[in-house]
């Protein structure tokens, strides 16, 4: 009794259009490229005096954050507003579910408000997936981070960053450094990079933070910076949470910085024109030295500005996928 599984059964319409955005896993190169192209087109609108486009006019987007994140929530809010949607921010972390209301109760209540899209952030892996399976047809779910599983909009803005700075993703060697075990960003990046034709994806860190099974996802496991950064085109540093020390995963911040912190010296292992990225917020002196974070190879601030465009792209594509599916079903 083996069970076949494909995430696209949930996130794509029958004719292969995006209707939810839950994970980069399993999406085609064409679809990921369409997201990047659409985001590119929005970047030019962001440079205009009037930044709004009417693609989501009359639609209601709910920011459903079960885990606090002012930064990510703000970029989604701005993206929705620039698409002319009405936006409702619900800080569930501090309200409903803490009063004993179940996740299902919360969803039913929100559906009663005739929402069109939920942007979901939750501490449990698979939460966005679960919600997408439970909501009424027609409501689009955008995953803004679920546990350790996926953070697909962050990964796509990183892809956009690489494409804009390196010209293309094909042929690039990319090292992702740090706490891979707990990182939803790393997982989403690996799927996207492999599909978009990166030459090699490396994950670098001590064995306590880099599961060897990452190899099954197509990443090469490196335990040392000397080999991990050798001749790479892109270095992505991940944030290190303080609780990793108390969980006995690492001895100290100082030892971590010494071995895995990105300094100018370690960066010389990479290609001379390599770029340095970080999904933020950065811990200066823990995973990255200030000289590198602010140096001329760093594109960290550009990443932030691409975030809004990528979220606009994904939101408009998912909404039009939902619309297409409704029309298709109505015509049957």
């Amino acid at each position, binding site marked *: 009794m083996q*069970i076949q599984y494909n995430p696209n059964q949930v996130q794509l319409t029958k004719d292969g259009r995006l209707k939810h955005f839950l994970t980069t896993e399993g999406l085609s190169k064409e679809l990921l490229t369409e997201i990047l192209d659409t985001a590119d087109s929005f970047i030019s609108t962001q440079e205009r005096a009037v930044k709004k486009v009417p693609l989501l006019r009359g639609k209601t987007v709910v920011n459903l954050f079960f885990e606090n994140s002012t930064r990510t929530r703000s970029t989604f809010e701005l993206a929705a507003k620039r698409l002319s949607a009405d936006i409702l921010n619900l800080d569930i972390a501090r309200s409903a579910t803490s009063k004993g209301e179940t996740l299902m109760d919360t969803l039913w209540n929100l559906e009663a408000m005739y929402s069109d899209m939920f942007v979901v952030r939750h501490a449990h892996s698979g939460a966005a997936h679960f919600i997408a399976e439970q909501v009424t047809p027609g409501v689009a779910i955008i995953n803004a981070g679920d*546990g350790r599983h996926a953070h697909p909009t962050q990964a796509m803005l990183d892809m956009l960053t690489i494409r804009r700075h390196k010209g293309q993703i094909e042929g690039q060697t990319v090292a992702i450094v740090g706490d891979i075990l707990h990182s939803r960003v790393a997982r989403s990046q690996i799927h996207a990079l492999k599909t978009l034709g990166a030459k090699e994806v490396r994950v670098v860190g001590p064995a306590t933070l880099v599961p060897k099974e990452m190899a099954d996802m197509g990443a090469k496991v490196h335990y040392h910076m000397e080999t991990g950064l050798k001749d790479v085109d892109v270095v992505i540093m991940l944030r290190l949470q303080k609780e990793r020390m108390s969980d006995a995963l690492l001895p100290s911040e100082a030892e971590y910085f010494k071995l895995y912190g990105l300094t100018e010296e370690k960066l010389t292992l990479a290609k001379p024109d390599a770029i340095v990225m970080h999904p933020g917020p950065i811990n200066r002196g823990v995973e990255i030295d200030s000289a590198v974070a602010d140096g001329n190879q760093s594109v960290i601030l550009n990443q932030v500005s691409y975030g809004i465009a990528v979220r606009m792209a994904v939101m408009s594509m998912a909404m039009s996928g939902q619309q297409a599916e409704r029309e298709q079903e109505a015509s049957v």
Partner: protein
Amino acid sequence: MTSLHISNCRILNSDATSVTIENGVISALGADAPTNAEVIDGKGALLLPGLIDLYSKANNIATEAQAAAHGGISIMCTSPDSKPMAEAPADIKSILSASDKTGAAKVLPLGTLTSELKGEQLANMHGLIEAGCIALSNARQPIKNTLVMRRLMEYAATHNITVFLTPQDQALAANGLMHEGPTATRLGLAGIPETAETIALAQQILLAELTGCKVHISHISCARAVDMIRDAKQRGIQISADVAIANLLYTDQAVNGYNSCFYVEPPLRAEQDRQALLAGVKEGLLAVSSNHKAHEQADKKATFADAETGMSILDTFLPMLMSLQAEDLTVAELANAASAVPAAILGLESAIETGKAANLVLFNEEEKQTCSEQDFLSSGSNSPILNQPLQGQVLLTLTKGEIAYQLS
């Protein structure tokens, strides 16, 4: 009614085509029906010894005993964390009387091994056995340390009590939700390494050897544990083990898509583990148990981490078991693993022979059925085969000659 005759059936390991039952005991094989007997036409179905289930949680003795009989089970052991909790002689009396009153599968309660299942103090072990417990277990709750483990084994050995243990090192299992492996890594779900099971099992085997206690290991899940049990038995240690049927049917791949139906303890492991467990069943080393745990829908409708663990198995136990014929197991080997092996562990008998208790199940292998929610007699239908086609159907289950379930 004291006399029953099942005609026109195929009896496992016998050329006879009928069985006669008098006063709860098999009185003849292949004889004509006595004049006063109630005759049941077996319609060519397969007659097997009634299944004996070593472990299920029953939140309601009546419904779960009916579900068990529906699934071909004549005798079932209920876990001590059932309702009521099996921790005092009065609870045992109430469980046994609920079982008798229901008249479905016979319930043999597993009593608590430690006080309130806290793993710190010994329960009144002798008193619980005297009140009618078949053996003692700590459900899936941890024993505080190896010293308490040693003492409870020594005390149990003193009174010749069988102890049921679940091997899991709590620290290594930590917040794990599924088997540690590539699927867990990809899904971002915390993993339970196989060493969480094997390290705890190694301690239990060594202490069983030290104390001479009769130990039964509930639900092993990995290949290495099968080898450890085989080796311990060869060294003469009084140890036995079972595997939950879910671990024979599914692997960690089933968790893809975050289907909380497959959130079970112990976790579904890799294909090589499943193959080793199947081999253990084939050689007669392992019993197969239901590890049944019924839930209302709301308990499973949550994110994977927030869902309750467990599968509802009882109603469909025999058809699920028989589906393992596709894995190179014969009907005789499967019946052995779900009836004769558990009978030996519990000190009961299981055989279709004259003079033996009439615990029997009549199974129509040809019939296809699809179980919807209403078909589950259990209080929960949290089953992966809910609304899925299922080969084979139980026609009749007898417990000591009494009809525990009959298809209407």
